[in-house]
């Protein structure tokens, strides 16, 4: 063996060792990823068709809607807040978008004679309305000092009420083909997954590479530190909630595209799912700790779980029980990373 090859082998060994160690580090740090992988392995052994490309895309698509909401929730919870209104905001922005995206034949009772509008109209409407509602949330809690729980709980009820009034309680359907295309695929990849991916990247950059992102961490980690460092806390809180509301609007578009109709009662309880995904992903309600990848993994844990339980043919009642247990266990395993050897 020449010296060179020996060196190469050594390097390789070292690389292997390092890679291994890095992998262990990652697993320890990212315990929840480990849980996700375990779940995937377990389900695939029992049901090999879990790993078909089609099903994988299904799982991703299914996680897209509350996953997008979880992205916004990550900012909110990292800033030590909570947003209970996202489910209702999805419904309200969704019905408004749907009413602007109906096919001309279903000439809507909303805007008679307006005809079919380009897709950008409903999209912008949902996104802007979502951001506006979020900004109201943020403004309320930062200027009056009421707890985020109350501000967004109020908004949850209010937005739902407006969705009901806007629609009279009936779903809005007959969306334009362009709209429902958003629920389809581009090549093999489902468009909801593409949209989700774009939102992940945007949110990641926002949280990690902008001053705004640093402010989010500082506000949640130590609001006094933020204040004495001259961070405009009020303005940033408004932006945080506006972004969260905006993502609820994006989720509404994906929802409408996928389902082809939006019901004023849609997405009831999704706020809890989004918060759960965020929390499973390690974002702390004590503020200052939160990651985008955590929210993505958390959302995946939930959708893999639901998909898996269905594939396994678990009885509907038991699905609830097992889902509850696995969420708890997943977070317990994830917690071990913080376990301090006393």
């Amino acid at each position, binding site marked *: 063996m020449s010296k060179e090859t020996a060196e190469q082998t050594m390097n390789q060994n070292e690389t292997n060792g390092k890679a291994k160690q890095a992998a262990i580090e990652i697993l320890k740090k990212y315990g929840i990823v480990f849980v996700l992988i375990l779940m995937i392995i377990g389900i695939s052994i029992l049901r090999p068709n879990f790993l078909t490309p089609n099903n994988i895309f299904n799982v991703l698509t*299914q996680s897209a809607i509350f996953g997008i909401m979880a992205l916004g929730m990550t900012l909110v919870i990292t800033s030590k807040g909570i947003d209970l209104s996202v489910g209702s905001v999805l419904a309200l922005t969704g019905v408004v978008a749907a009413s602007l995206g109906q096919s001309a034949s279903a000439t809507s009772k909303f805007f008679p004679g307006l005809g079919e509008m380009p897709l950008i109209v409903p999209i912008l409407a949902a996104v802007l309305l979502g951001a506006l509602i979020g900004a109201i949330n943020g403004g309320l809690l930062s200027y009056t000092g009421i707890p985020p729980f109350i501000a967004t709980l109020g908004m949850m009820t209010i937005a739902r009420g407006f969705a009901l009034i806007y629609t*009279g*309680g*009936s779903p809005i359907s007959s969306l334009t083909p362009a709209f429902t295309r958003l629920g389809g695929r581009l090549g093999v990849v489902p468009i909801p997954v593409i949209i989700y991916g774009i939102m992940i990247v945007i949110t990641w950059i926002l949280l990690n590479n902008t001053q705004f992102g640093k402010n989010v961490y500082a506000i949640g980690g130590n609001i006094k530190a933020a204040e004495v460092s001259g961070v405009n806390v009020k303005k940033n809180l408004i932006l945080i909630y506006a972004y969260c509301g905006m993502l609820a609007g994006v989720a509404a578009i994906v*929802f409408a595209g996928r389902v082809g109709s939006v019901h004023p*009662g849609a*997405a*009831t309880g999704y706020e809890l799912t989004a918060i759960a995904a965020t929390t499973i992903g390690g974002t702390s309600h004590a503020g200052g700790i939160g990651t985008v990848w955590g929210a993505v993994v958390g959302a995946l844990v939930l959708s893999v779980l639901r998909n898996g339980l*269905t594939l396994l043919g678990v009885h509907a009642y038991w*699905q609830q029980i097992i889902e509850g247990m696995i969420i708890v266990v997943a977070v317990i395993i994830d917690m071990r990373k913080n376990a301090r050897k006393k």
Partner: protein
Amino acid sequence: ACGGGGGGGTEAPAAEEGAMTIGYASSNLNDTGQTFVADGARTYAEANGLTIQVQDAQEDVVRQQDQVKTMIEQGVDALVVVPVDTSAMGPITDAAQEAGIPLVYVNRNPFGEDQPPEGVYYVGSQEIVAGRMQGEALVEMMGEEGNVGILMGILSNEGAIKRTEGNEEILSQYPGINILAKETGNWQRDQGMSLTENWLTAYGDDLNAILANNDEMALGAVQALQAAGRDDVLVMGVDATPDAKEAVKGGSLAATVLQDLFGQGNMGTEIAHQAAQGNSPSQLTWIDFVPVTIDNVDEF
């Protein structure tokens, strides 16, 4: 549908002489079907110069009781109630009887086989019948062999339980028919869609039919099937909503079951009106379900 909504309720109830007030307690106005029932009630009231006050219990039985009691306190002339939980209507019945106000239950029957007590009425149908109709229609179209998935509503809802029971009652008579899965889509279209996607992975070509407890979930299933390029799976819903009728016409939905919800609300209010005027309408009024397929969809 919303147009008439705001107006009727906000007027001072029972204030002026002559104008009768009907208290209407809905189980859940978030439920499309229930908005049709409420529309029926409102239409009757408007046509007959009655004031109607609509309350929404949002699926909370205690809240419904509170609302009814408050309306009694406020002095309505008659009550129309869509029960949240048919087994829990005792206190409401008692309260109405005590106050001497006629009470009409609509859409969901708290009395089962029994006769309602004096001054209490029922207008509607038996949920289980809708389930049976779906089952029968399915056997007719699919034959006596096949694998079925059932999309249930909220698991604790009577409609979900009875309709599913009706499905099973019929299907169990055919040894060749197999129920692959029963899961809840919580009445929602998006959840019906996700479940169907998962079923397609789990059962693939084995899946021959989907019976949904309502049209919203059925339409979600249709969407998932179309996306997967499957046109061989029969899907059936309940309610005959406009979207569903459209889908039946287009052939993507095999059948739905019409429940004349508008008619129930309308009739319920009429009976309440009659009783409040001192007439004695019949205590039980059945408004039957009708199966809707491509053959008869144009009639509705």
